[in-house]
């Protein structure tokens, strides 16, 4: 009897989750152009948006989407761009509340098929990008990601040529966030120079992101003159870190760096450091552990508990944007809330597409706009004046702005629940190595 009831429950659950799969939505830009030239001529172009917009990722995707919307609404209010009114085609790549590469691929396929789409803002997640770029590369459709950091999406030495296989030399994917290889380097600089640490113990989660981050950290920390006592790999299934920590305890490390995300062991490693008497050591990682305050279920600070104190992390984006208050005011006025972490980045992506459109619209027929916008935006000699500052994109589509923001845990922040607080940000230049610390705060 009871088994049957459990079985029936399971069946119902499966049906429910199936029914909740995401539906792509299309919404026009909300603000109509007030009698500008664009509206008069009636010509329109579309900007596609692909972000996770439902379930648990709504908190990431929605403020990012609103950044795009704000830029488009402002452009339309000013009479459109290059004689065109801008429309939006918004797609959700989350399935059952989690970003989904297959859904992302389906979304960009429909955007590619729409001839009015001149560019796409998105995606948010690197693995979704890896599924989308082959499609947009084949079609020659410009994509600008506000948040992707995996170097493999752009850099040939990390395998990007496999992703843009159709036309390896025709760049169509650009991004305004810098990459994980610079994050690992920045982590080493911060540990060595800001914190004065000299003996590092490095653990990675044996996954692409984590191992890559840890390797760059080790290289840079050694180059700076520090000693890496040991580099260990602990698969995401590891639950007991005490033998790893015991093995290095006698060699007196003064900082532990973790390549990985909270869910693959960052929080547990930090928690168990306290357990074996290494709780006073500094602990660091990449944006995989800078994941919100201590009252968010599953965040680094929540999992590690009190042991999370004295930790640092990096975010591959600028924290101090120029004219931050003007942007925040405009956003607040439009949506009645504060901008999210990637709102300004999405706004900047939209600005890049619109400025490219502005530059080419005059001498390009509407049918050639998609290719002209792509060619203009990905040309390394073109500069764009964006909310993040003046940027251009290199021969792989990576931003010229290599700014990393540093954060530390403050267990008294947010009324005692603990949170990451901004320390400073630094531009790691184009070479990416040993730039002088240009602290902005």
């Amino acid at each position, binding site marked *: 009897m009871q*088994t049957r009831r459990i079985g029936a429950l399971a069946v119902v659950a499966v049906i429910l989750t199936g029914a909740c799969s995401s539906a792509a939505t299309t919404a026009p830009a909300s603000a109509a152009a007030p009698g500008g030239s664009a509206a008069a001529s009636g010509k329109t172009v579309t900007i596609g948006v692909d972000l996770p917009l439902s379930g648990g990722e709504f908190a990431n995707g929605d403020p990012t989407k609103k950044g795009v919307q704000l830029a488009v609404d402002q452009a339309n209010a000013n009479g459109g761009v290059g004689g065109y009114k801008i429309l939006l085609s918004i797609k959700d790549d989350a399935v059952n509340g989690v970003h989904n590469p297959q859904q992302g691929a389906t979304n960009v396929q429909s955007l590619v098929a729409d001839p009015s789409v001149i560019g796409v803002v998105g995606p948010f997640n690197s693995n979704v990008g890896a599924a989308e770029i082959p499609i947009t590369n084949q079609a020659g459709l410009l994509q600008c990601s506000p948040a992707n950091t995996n170097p493999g999406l752009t850099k040939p030495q990390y395998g990007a040529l496999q992703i843009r296989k159709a036309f390896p030399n025709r760049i169509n994917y650009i991004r305004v966030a810098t990459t994980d290889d610079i994050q690992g380097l920045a982590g080493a600089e911060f540990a060595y120079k800001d914190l004065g640490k000299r003996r590092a113990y490095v653990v990675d989660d044996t996954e692409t992101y984590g191992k890559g981050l840890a390797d760059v950290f080790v290289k840079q920390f050694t180059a700076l003159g520090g000693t890496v006592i040991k580099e260990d790999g602990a698969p995401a299934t590891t639950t007991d870190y005490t*033998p790893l920590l015991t093995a290095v305890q006698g060699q007196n490390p003064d900082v532990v760096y973790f390549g990985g995300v909270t869910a693959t062991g960052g929080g*547990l490693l930090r*928690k168990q450091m306290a357990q074996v008497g290494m709780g006073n050591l500094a602990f660091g990682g990449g944006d995989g552990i800078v994941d919100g305050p201590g009252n968010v279920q599953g965040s680094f600070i929540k999992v590690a508990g009190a042991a999370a104190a004295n930790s640092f992390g990096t975010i591959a984006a600028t924290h101090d944007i120029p004219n931050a208050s003007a942007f925040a005011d405009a956003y607040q006025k439009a949506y009645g809330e504060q901008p999210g972490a990637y709102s300004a980045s999405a706004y900047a992506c939209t600005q890049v597409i619109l400025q490219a459109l502005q530059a080419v619209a005059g001498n390009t027929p509407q049918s050639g706009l998609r290719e002209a916008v792509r060619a203009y935006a990905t040309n390394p000699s073109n500069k764009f004046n964006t909310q993040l500052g003046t940027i251009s994109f290199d021969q792989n589509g990576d931003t010229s702005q290599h700014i990393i923001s540093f954060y530390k845990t403050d267990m008294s922040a947010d009324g005692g629940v603990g949170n990451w607080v901004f320390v400073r940000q630094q531009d790691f230049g184009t070479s990416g190595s040993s730039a002088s610390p240009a602290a902005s705060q």
Partner: protein
Amino acid sequence: MQMQRSIQLPARLEGGPYRLIGAIAVSLVVAYVLVGPQQFSNFLTIGAIYALIALGYTMVYGIIELINFAHGDIFGLGAFVALWLLTMGGFNGAINNPVELAVVLVALFLLTMGIMGLVGVAIERFAYRPLRNAPRLAPLITAIGVSFILENIMQAFFGPSPVNSPQIFTLNARFDIAGASIGYLNVFIVLVAVALMIGLQLFVGRTRLGRAMRSTAQDREAAELMGVNIDQTIAITFFIGSALAGAGGIVWALYFGYAVFNQGFYAGLFAFTAAVLGGIGNTTGAALGGFFIGFVYVAAAQFGYSRWFEVFIFGILVLVLVFRPTGLLGQQLGERA
């Protein structure tokens, strides 16, 4: 490494238990020399947890020849039950009064092991008993299904992220010996595990119910003809096995201070490997196998090969299955339940 001496032992230990005890002693000395005192304590602690889980695997296999893949999740659920009881009890930190701590611990073990034992009995009653005479593949697949159900129940109640557990046993209570700093909690865990194992051996070897278990394992029909209540005996086997896994869950929650809904999956795989290493159906072998897995893990971490830990474990499993399929101590289905 630890078991190399044991390989030469006859399958049924006809020479008496002294050779086995000698082999264990030699192995412990070798392990101590290899990894040093601090890691020695780590290995005994994690090994004790794996051993507690492995016992349930091996007992269930011994009596109904079912690889109970849900067993790892019983361990995971045990950690959550302990965590939940402690949270409900209003504990949120270390208890420094030894008398109070002892009372709380005894209550915690009795309650959690009792609850988990009943969960195990319920699973056997509703998921496995209806399939007792079905082809052997059917209960195996059912066991995997039960495993998923347990994991999803845990995820539904406690969420997909690790949940912090109150650590009532203060972690700072340590003593220094041989240049190592050993937590009293580590000693406590090993003592509890060894006590439970000795208790299990005495129960199976000396009591009426234990004799019923052994006879059921040897020949179910003959046992039934002799008046053994088969259903009751199998239910008791599940109760004890699940209660031991629950004890593993308790010490896990006390030691690591967290529980996560899928922790039983990998712990279960390692414990299953331990049971096969020792000779599935053989409780002594399962316990030793658990400690052996713990040692391999700690040695891999000590020498910088943690990346390869799973390769070592499952590589050893493959070698044992190829060259000594009955395990290092041999299957002793009839002898030791």
